[in-house]
């Protein structure tokens, strides 16, 4: 059975079998094939082929110039990352991890709280929502510039005026660690300039979370809340035991968004990463293409492959979760 007849067969599959051959005529078959093949080819060619190629290239010493100069070097690039460039690498990994944790305990919790409060029949709720949501439509690069010029300006930024006590504060230049630990002679930790970037990211991320939770809360049945309050549950108990569990689908989406955002973070760090210590993995990958290490395709790809490995688990988990049961379900 060819694919086209499989399509036809499935398309007409009802309780009583319909005659197959008359449904998908020659033209329909061509149209259907084109509708699937053209977009899929583009997507596979520019997204999946490069993904696989990244993994392959991470095992080579290619300089990006001639294919004939490419040699297989096994795990050499990874070995170098873990031994020669380990200070950059582990700090970047730690920054990604701190960003992830921060996004969960900061914007996610706060955004959820705002959504919960705004769901309480607030007059002018739309106005408040707009205020929190406006930063979300800005690109993180613009956010970086806005915060750099207005909030974090060394001499006369708003943050300097409020917290500086009359002194100039180098918010995005200060690489001092707030806390740190030493492993193998390297010192790793949360630098002051990375925290400044985290705060700017949180400003943008909170509204995103708020909107998603607001949508979720709208779908919570009011009788659930009433039942909880009749049972004498206080607000916190009602939220934790009754409302939060019903938000599970939204929680899953937010978990995925947050993990992916934390691994993808690039723009604002690229813009503000002037004196270093704020690198994340995406920056290291790209530095091997643009910056100091330009032309080192092998090592850049090894960073990319590590990034891929880190997000692979979440991608598989989410996709299987979402399409579980679709095979039988989709029947029309």
């Amino acid at each position, binding site marked *: 059975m060819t694919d086209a007849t499989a399509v036809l067969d499935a398309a007409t599959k009802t309780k009583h079998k319909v005659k197959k051959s008359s449904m998908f005529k020659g033209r329909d078959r061509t149209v259907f094939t084109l509708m699937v093949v053209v977009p899929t080819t583009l997507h596979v060619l520019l997204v999946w082929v490069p993904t696989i190629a990244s993994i392959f290239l991470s095992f080579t010493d290619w300089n990006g110039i001639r294919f004939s100069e490419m040699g297989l070097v096994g795990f050499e690039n990874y070995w170098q990352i873990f031994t020669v460039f380990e200070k950059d690498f582990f700090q970047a990994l730690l920054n990604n991890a701190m960003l992830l944790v921060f996004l969960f305990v900061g914007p996610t919790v706060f955004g959820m709280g705002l959504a919960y409060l705004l769901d309480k029949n607030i007059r002018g709720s739309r106005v408040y929502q707009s205020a929190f949501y406006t930063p979300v439509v800005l690109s993180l690069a613009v956010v970086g510039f806005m915060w750099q010029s*207005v909030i974090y300006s060394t001499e006369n930024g708003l943050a300097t005026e409020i917290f500086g006590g009359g002194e100039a504060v180098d918010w995005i230049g200060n690489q001092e660690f707030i806390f740190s630990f030493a492993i193998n002679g390297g010192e790793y930790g949360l630098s002051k300039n990375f925290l400044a970037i985290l705060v700017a990211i949180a400003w943008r991320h909170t509204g995103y979370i708020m909107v998603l939770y607001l949508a979720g809360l709208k779908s919570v049945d009011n009788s659930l809340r009433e039942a909880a309050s009749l049972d004498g549950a206080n607000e916190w108990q009602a939220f934790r035991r009754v409302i939060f569990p019903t938000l599970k689908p939204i929680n899953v989406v937010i978990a995925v968004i947050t993990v992916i955002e934390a691994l993808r973070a690039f723009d604002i760090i690229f813009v503000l990463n002037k004196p270093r210590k704020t690198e994340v993995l995406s920056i290291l990958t790209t530095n091997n293409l643009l910056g100091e290490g330009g032309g080192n395709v092998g090592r850049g790809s090894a960073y990319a492959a590590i990034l891929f490995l880190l997000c692979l688990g979440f991608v598989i988990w989410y996709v299987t979760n979402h399409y579980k049961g679709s095979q039988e379900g989709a029947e029309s």
Partner: protein
Amino acid sequence: MTVVDDAPTMNADEASASFEQNKQPIRPARVLLYIFLTVTALVWLVPIIGAIYASFRPFSETVSEGYFSVPNTLTLDNYKNAWEQGDILKKYWNTFLILVPALTLTLFFSSMVAFAASRYSWKFNISLLVLFTAGNLLPQQIIIQPLFQMYNRVPLPEFLSNSGRLNGSTWGLILIHVAFQSGFCTFVLSNYMKLLPKSLNEAARVDGAGVWTLYWQIIMPLTRPALAALATLEFTWIYNDFFWAVVLEQQGADRPITSSLANLGGEFFTDDNLIAAASMYVAAPTLIVYFALQKHFIAGLTLGADKG
């Protein structure tokens, strides 16, 4: 609801009849809630309002008086200078040339795949959706090395690309936007189309309508709310793209507006208020679209989240 809220007397039945009325005894908490929300919302707007305010003042005045000061001078000079020095009009045009085809093609392509995979059940329809959904979740930096090398090796005639290659051309950026964004759009549109009545396929077949007619004249019009929501969202995302253009369009003059920010802070932009004005140029289109099409915007985000 507000009428009932203000009514001073009510019996026990009424009081428990609605959650809202139960809130009656803790009125002060309600006031606190409004105060909290108002203060937080105002704090939230500080960076944007601060940028707007600063952009209208000469930098020298901000330096001498500080941010919290009554303005002596309000001027459009920063906007004028940023416009000229940043070549903003050209950058808007660069963005336009990428955004319009990329947005149209993304919605067109992903609606076709979503249609084929959600309206018909065949051997690979779920696998196809898995492919697009997973593709949408990958960080862009994973694919950038090979993509850059690939783009470098695709020749384009001179009149299509200044660089003579796909790398550094508008076409390259359009293609990667379409390829990458169609992941998310296919995911959202297939979720939406799946919920349209199955009988539509049957009815079209009985009427002798072909696949294309079913797609273009029946399913697409019914998918309009999702398409409007996605168009709004994708406008912002493609407009806001920084990464693709920074790597694949390395000639500063040809960059779209958002990524031309990467050139800021250098030789041209010497003061913070000028940067604030330049940021406002970049931010303005997305802010306008957001306030004009707020409903669609929020719908787009929650459509993606609905079917978790």
